[in-house]
């Protein structure tokens, strides 16, 4: 069993080794202990370019898949929820009920697997902005509806205030917008690096 003193000593030695210069001399610690700038910049760029978009894709993909399951299982209850929004004409209510959950499921899978990302991200943005707009629209006209976002059961969500739905959906919209800008920038760079490269028709 190591004493606290021994553990702290080992930690200090590890830190020393980490910041030792190639010639064995210690760097100037007068500016504080930190990794060299180019290293931290590189890891930050790597984080921004790879990790963060992937995490956001996982979150949005998970949200879409989670949101689709209950709607696919209970189409009649979801049709009621769509009807309650009072936005769509009657002729489109059932079609939306039949297609929208599968669109959400596909988007979730495509986002997580990274397939057809530009299209999936564009659609995610369109869907989330539409959902957010519908909530704001109904709140503005004083309609306290059951949103049917994640569950078709009315009892489970009746107590949740519309404002909470709006905050939650607002966060999703922001995440989707971030992903859109990231994908657009990535596509822009790809076009820059290989302007004449043959790409798939999609």
């Amino acid at each position: 069993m190591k004493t606290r003193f021994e553990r702290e000593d080992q930690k200090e030695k590890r830190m020393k080794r980490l910041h030792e210069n190639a010639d064995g001399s210690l760097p100037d610690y007068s500016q504080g202990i930190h990794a060299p700038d180019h290293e931290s910049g590189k890891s930050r760029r790597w984080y921004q370019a790879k990790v963060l978009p992937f995490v956001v894709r996982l979150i949005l993909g998970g949200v879409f898949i989670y949101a689709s399951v209950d709607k696919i299982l209970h189409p009649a209850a979801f049709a009621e929820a769509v009807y309650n929004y009072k936005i769509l004409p009657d002729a489109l209510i059932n079609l939306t009920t039949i297609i929208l959950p599968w669109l959400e499921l596909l988007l979730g899978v495509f986002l997580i697997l990274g397939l057809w990302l530009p299209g999936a991200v564009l659609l995610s943005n369109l869907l989330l902005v539409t959902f957010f707009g519908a909530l704001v629209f109904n709140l503005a006209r004083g309609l306290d509806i059951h949103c049917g976002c994640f569950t078709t059961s009315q009892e489970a969500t009746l107590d949740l205030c519309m404002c909470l739905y709006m905050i939650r959906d607002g966060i999703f919209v922001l995440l989707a917008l971030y992903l859109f800008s990231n994908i657009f920038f990535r596509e822009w760079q790809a076009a820059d690096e290989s302007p004449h490269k043959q790409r798939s028709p999609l």
Partner: protein
Amino acid sequence: MAETERVKRIGLRMVRQAGAIVLLAVIIGVMVNQIRSDRLPLVADWSPEARLTLESGESMVIPIEEARELCSSQSATFLDARSSELYEHGHILCARNLPWNAVDEHFDTVMADIHQDALLIVYCDGESCPESKDLALDLFYRGYENVRVLVNGWSLWVEQHLPVEKGPCQGES
């Protein structure tokens, strides 16, 4: 100019892929709907009359004239399915408040002296407000067989200058 061209190319790629995903969702959605037992018709009638028709084909809708007569003869119990706040603000004369958003909480108190054969008229506010339909069906499945829905009840009642009151029902004991 080259930048505009590039933006256009990226945009087109996004739109093409998005279109393909939507098409895939349409194909899967329609196919799955066709083979499932609880399939929905692609286009349905969502009018209040169609929504308020029981599986037996009997309509639950009651016309305003009939409701007015039943109110004046006091031969039906009116149930306001809106929230307690809206009920307090104004309701049909002697209607009881059974808010759909807290139906289990209020059910025993409100329905204690009402027999299951009694004629009940449920209403909320708005052409397509869901509370009256949901409450009517809930009552029907609880064994109240004479339940009718006054579509767009509150607005229609006020428009026709029929008797209303504020606060709790004055006829209540």
